[in-house]
């Protein structure tokens, strides 16, 4: 009886809730950002890519930086969901849905921002008609589509038992939402055969998503590494990108954990222990990423080849130095120092560290793209002086910010519709503890 009451309490705690005033304001702000971005994109469509500040030197600007950032963040779905599940890491269970929601939202905007960067979206179909299988760009298109589909399935399958629970509370939801739940999961009866099929499917998805996740970010790194340019001509790039992606993804989950814990009062489900363990994981991932950064920059710095010298000097001591060292210290070194102490792994410091990691990671992606393009092996002749510098136009900023806001908006709406923490899994876990 007591167990049943506790179960009901868990369900009530974890059911998705309507937005209060704060939530509505948050959605309003994100929507406003998106609208400004849509207007900027309208201007880009109308007047062409000339409204951006991308020119002959920097032809991949803030859009591609954002694309790499989104692809990186999306990798967290495979880390938290698949790796933790396959390794039997029980404490990660409450975080799986958050991770999958972030992954789905990020991969959607990774796809969108690439189309924005193309300039002429009406020609997108040419990529499929005339794309070469030898090109890393086609590999990226294929693998992003695959990863998106797997992430969607990995979000959906574990939702089935929760949908059955949601359908019990018809009075709590408006008819349209209830109909949506019915459409998605009314057939789930909790039958043993259904449970076995679902379990097998989730296991298969977890196995499939890991190589696809590694591929998606390796292929994204190859977009750069297969191009012969200072800073990109590296055999380290695949591993370097994956290590960075795991770090920023874990940072994003920590930020989301703190927000949900505070906003939805989920202290019982997202505990200090979760933060402590995620903190330890972040230290490991930061050190791993630091190791790859040392590999990436120390050997070229030691050799200082003439063709790469101006790029490296610009990065270490030149115009990009403040951003470079900010990204290294804020995104990698300081988090390690803070999180080594137990006090640093408490929720609030962890939240701050999570933000530092995500912000540092965004600037790191900018530094991967832009400085290299400004330092080609062969300087261009007879180009206007303005081409040798790059600062995004307001349209680029608006679209980039809108894509970030759009990602957060999707996560917010998913949290409004679906339980942030898997209800059935929490109930099962609680049942096992009681037994």
């Amino acid at each position, binding site marked *: 009886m007591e167990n049943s009451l506790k*179960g009901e309490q868990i369900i009530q705690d974890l059911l998705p809730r309507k937005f209060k005033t704060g939530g509505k304001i948050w959605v309003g702000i994100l929507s406003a950002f998106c609208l400004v971005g849509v207007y900027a994109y309208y201007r880009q469509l109308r007047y062409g890519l000339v409204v951006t500040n991308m020119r002959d030197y920097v032809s991949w600007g803030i859009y591609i930086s954002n694309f790499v950032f989104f692809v990186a963040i999306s990798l967290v779905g495979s880390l938290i969901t698949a790796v933790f599940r396959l390794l039997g890491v029980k404490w990660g269970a409450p975080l799986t849905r958050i991770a999958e929601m972030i992954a789905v939202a990020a991969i959607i905007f990774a796809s969108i921002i690439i189309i924005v960067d193309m300039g002429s979206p009406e020609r997108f179909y040419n990529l499929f008609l005339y794309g070469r*299988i*030898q090109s890393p760009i086609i590999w990226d298109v294929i693998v992003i589509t695959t990863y998106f589909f797997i992430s969607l399935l990995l979000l959906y399958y574990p939702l089935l*038992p929760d949908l059955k629970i949601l359908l019990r509370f018809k009075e709590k939801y408006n008819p349209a939402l209830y109909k949506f739940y019915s459409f998605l999961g009314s057939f789930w009866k909790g039958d043993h055969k*259904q449970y076995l*099929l679902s379990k097998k499917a989730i296991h298969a998805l977890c196995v499939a998503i890991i190589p696809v996740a590694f591929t998606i970010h390796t292929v994204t790194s190859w977009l750069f590494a297969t191009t012969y340019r200072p800073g990109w001509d590296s055999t380290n790039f695949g591993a370097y990108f994956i290590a960075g992606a795991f770090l920023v993804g874990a940072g994003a989950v920590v930020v989301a954990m703190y927000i949900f814990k505070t906003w939805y009062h989920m202290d019982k489900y997202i505990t200090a222990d979760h933060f402590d363990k995620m903190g330890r994981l972040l230290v490991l991932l930061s050190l791993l990423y630091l190791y790859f950064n040392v590999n990436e920059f120390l050997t070229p710095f030691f050799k200082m080849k003439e063709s790469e010298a101006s790029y490296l000097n610009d990065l270490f001591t030149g115009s990009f130095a403040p951003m470079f060292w900010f990204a290294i210290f804020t995104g990698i070194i300081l988090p390690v120092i803070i999180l080594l102490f137990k006090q640093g792994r408490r929720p609030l410091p962890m939240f701050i560290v999570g933000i530092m990691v995500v912000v540092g990671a965004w600037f790191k992606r900018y530094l991967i793209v832009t400085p290299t393009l400004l330092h080609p092996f062969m300087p261009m002749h007879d180009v206007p002086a303005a081409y040798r510098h790059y600062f995004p136009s307001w349209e680029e900023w608006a679209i980039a910010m809108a894509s970030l806001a759009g990602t957060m908006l999707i996560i917010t709406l998913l949290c409004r519709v679906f339980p942030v923490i898997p209800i059935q899994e929490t109930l099962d876990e609680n049942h096992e503890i009681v037994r």
Partner: protein
Amino acid sequence: MLVMSAYKGVAQNAAKASVAIAINYFEANNSIPHLLVTAKSRVNGRFQPVGGIRLRLCLDKDSAGTAIATVVTSKKGEATAYIPPSVKNEWERSKTHTFLAIFDGDKKYEPANADLTVARAKMLISTSGKSITATVLQLKDTSWIPVKGVDVKIGVRRLGGDLPVNETPTFTTDSTGQASADFKRDNIPGDSKGNIVLVARVDDNDQFGNLSIETTVPWGAKTRFISDFDKRALFATRAKAPVWLIFMSGGIIVAVWATLILLVRNIFRIKKIGREAEPAVVQSNHRI
């Protein structure tokens, strides 16, 4: 005010730089000669090319009837002009000519001029066995006289310049005006018939300027051009992708998407089980 205007005049004069002009004379294959004019100015102790200045080129004297061309220097400070038919009579009249380059000055540079005197000469090239003979002749009165003591380079034309035919970089003409060299570049790649181009040249000679003559001989190795354009390669077109890549990528894509399609089908199986089990489960709903 007078002082100010005087100062302005001095300042303007002081701001003008001087230009150094040089003329080079070229005659290739005893064809129509041309002139290469260069303009330089000293900036911070170093000579820098002067582009965009207008120069008048004349033959022997500065007059309308002897004008060769009016040229404007490029960014490299260079300009080229061929000797036009309009000065043919003047050209035939003398065995030695003086070329004049005149710059009238502009807002930035002082007026300047240069001259170059060359004697009319020509080169011949002949081969015997694998030996090459270059001859330098000068026009005196009405006949061509051999010239002794002229340095001649004999080489094979390659993409990046002329490759000497043997270890000796320069040969000197004898009393017959001839310089001979043995060809020691066996198996040097030629065209599909083994043809190579031999070149004999006189560079920057004080008396004759720059002369050159060339001839084609079948002394090179025959090369067959093999085009990679239509072969399967990573850099080829879509239709020419490597077979291994098509199979590998195709295999991976089919394997992964077949798994995903099965997993989608799995949802319909779960759905079907749900519909079949509905009455029984409603009665024994032990699982939430």
